């Protein structure tokens, strides 16, 4: 049993310690056909040593959120509102990543140094014409005062850490000489070689086959514990969330519609969209290729703005005259750690309204 004061401290720690605080982030694409609001005012707090899972159907803005965090949006995309406060490594004021110039030196120090990212397609995410060693040592040389041989040693050490066999040989290999699983391990080594405080993994296993998938996920989990970093795990697969995450944010059309610790979310999903996603998880005995698309309807095209709750056209529980009016805010309606953006949970709690 811990004393009440210890309890209070851990509670304060888990509540207060924030690595990256995303507030009201909004990303828009200005295209010839119109404006796409890819990210629609999301709030997300990322804590050290924890894994936050971000889940949602394809096109709901997961990758764009992640790219906005590093200011590596596609050329037409702009952060149009919000803040992303990154806690400094040692005291001092937080840095607002949203205010940094996308080509400036400050954000470049943070990319790969404080926040790293790995991508969906290990096949095409590494340069085909440079060796693995070249690409990993480049990261080291960018962020650490190291000589080339030192950087190479670090690269080899890192490859060993991520379980690449014969790393002394593999540093001289080109990506096309390696299997998909090995390439993703090399990507992870490259992302982690400068010990970032946050790793963003954008569908890191989607392009890999199932047996390799779980290897990579447990590798990420192991490294997270060993290196003590935060992980943002982006996926469309709730199975991946269950395997890796501590907390979950469910995204739909550029908004977070539900957020909860992982167990709570799986046990007690509140938003009809989350419930729909969970219903689609393939169980044993059913086909594995049963996908999330079994929610009726599909994601509307990005140029139309849905009035009211973005999910209401597809929602079986929609209330006419309510759901098509206002966008419900993301609020703690069912518990302190469990927030949901749905009017269904407003009515029975009159005390919350006062």
């Amino acid at each position, binding site marked *: 049993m811990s004393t009440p004061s210890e309890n209070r401290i851990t509670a304060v720690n888990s509540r207060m310690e924030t690595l990256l605080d995303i507030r009201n982030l909004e990303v828009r694409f200005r295209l010839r056909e119109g404006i796409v609001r890819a990210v629609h005012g999301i709030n997300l707090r990322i804590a050290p040593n924890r894994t936050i899972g971000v889940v949602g159907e394809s096109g709901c803005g997961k990758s764009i959120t992640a*790219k906005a965090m*590093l200011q*590596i949006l*596609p*050329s037409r995309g702009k952060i149009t509102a919000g803040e992303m406060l990154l806690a400094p490594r040692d005291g001092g004021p937080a840095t607002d990543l949203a205010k940094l110039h996308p*080509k400036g*030196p400050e954000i*470049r*120090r*943070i*990319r*790969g*140094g404080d926040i*790293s*990212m790995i*991508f*969906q*397609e290990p096949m*095409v*995410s*590494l*340069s*085909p*014409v*440079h*060796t693995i060693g070249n*690409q990993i040592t*480049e*990261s080291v040389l*960018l*962020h650490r005062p190291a000589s080339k041989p030192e950087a190479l040693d670090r690269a080899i050490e890192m490859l060993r850490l991520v379980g690449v066999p014969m790393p002394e040989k593999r540093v001289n290999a*080109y990506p*096309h*000489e390696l299997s998909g699983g090995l390439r993703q391990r090399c*990507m992870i080594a*490259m992302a982690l070689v400068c010990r970032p405080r946050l790793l963003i993994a954008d569908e890191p296993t989607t392009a890999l086959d199932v047996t390799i998938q779980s290897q990579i996920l447990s590798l990420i989990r192991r490294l997270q514990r060993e290196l003590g970093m935060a992980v943002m795990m982006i996926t469309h697969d709730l199975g991946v969330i269950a395997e890796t995450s501590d907390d979950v944010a469910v995204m739909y059309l550029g908004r977070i519609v539900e957020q909860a610790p992982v167990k709570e979310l799986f046990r007690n999903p509140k938003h009809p969209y989350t419930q729909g996603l969970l219903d689609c998880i393939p169980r044993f005995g059913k086909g594995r290729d049963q996908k999330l698309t079994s929610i009726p309807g599909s994601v509307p095209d990005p140029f139309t703005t849905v009035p009211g709750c973005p999910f209401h056209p597809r929602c079986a529980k929609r209330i006419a005259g309510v759901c098509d009016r206002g966008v419900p805010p993301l609020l703690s309606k069912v518990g302190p750690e469990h927030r949901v953006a749905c009017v269904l949970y407003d009515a029975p709690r009159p005390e919350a309204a006062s």
Partner: protein
Amino acid sequence: MLTFLARRILIMIPTLFIISIVSFFIIQLPPGDFLTSYVANLAQTGEQVDEAQIAALRARYGLDEPFYVQYGKWMSGVMVGDFGRSFAQNRPVSELIWERLWLTVALALVTVVFTWIIAVPMGIYSATHQYSLWDNVFAFIGFMGMSFPSFSLALILLYFSYTWFGTSVGGLFSPEYVDAPWSALKVFDLFTHIWVPVAILAVEGTAGLMREIRANLLDQLEMPYVITARAKGLSEWRLLLKYPVRVAINPMISSLGWMLPGLVSGSVIVSMVMNLPTTGPLLLTALQDQDMYLAGSFVFLLSVLTVIGTLVSDILLAWVDPRIRFKGQES
């Protein structure tokens, strides 16, 4: 890499052999042979025909013998640098060819280098600033350059330089150096004159290359590996040059080898217009005169250049693109 090289060089030998047969076949194509028309010419002008000399020449080139014997004789000459004799000019072919050949190669090489130096930065700028003012300006210049025949550009340039400055920009040397033996000063003189034909010849290639680099680079700019590199914290310029430009230029390196022979043959008309001492005009007259040893040797040597150019670009491509090297090792 070494096995790759060795294989490529070995393949060259049969290729050159086949080319020499084809070249020789071209020599033989017109009806009759040089000596019959030579003798006919002499007879027409009423000159005395030295039967003994004709017979000696006939024997020397084996003109009455079957194709393969003639080929053997010509080829054994070629091996030691004797390409036969130009009948029209009554001089050994080799004497006529070498200087022009080197000048041609020099002109082509300088043009290629110049083309790349201009086209690559323009292409990179256009791709990274797609639809900007300068992208459109470059595109306009590019299409003009591609559609405007270079010989008419040469004519216009000649006309204006003559009417405005009273000087001719033709030729590759100042008058006092044209027949002078090679010296440092003559080389320098060459370099001061070569720019005008180079600029004219480079226009078309530059326009094409620029559009090609722009298109290739646009395909690469938002590739995942570029985003990966950006996510590492690389600065935009280093990123651009190290990753997408490198990948975008790769396929064009293989076209370097074909650019050389293309320039050699493409420069014929410009060389005529500008009175350049390159192979083009000589080849044309040789063909008109049916001076077939001269013409055949030209065809052969230009083909050799093509083969060498292709070899060079294959080596370059294998050197810059590990995927190709890898394939070479596998098979």
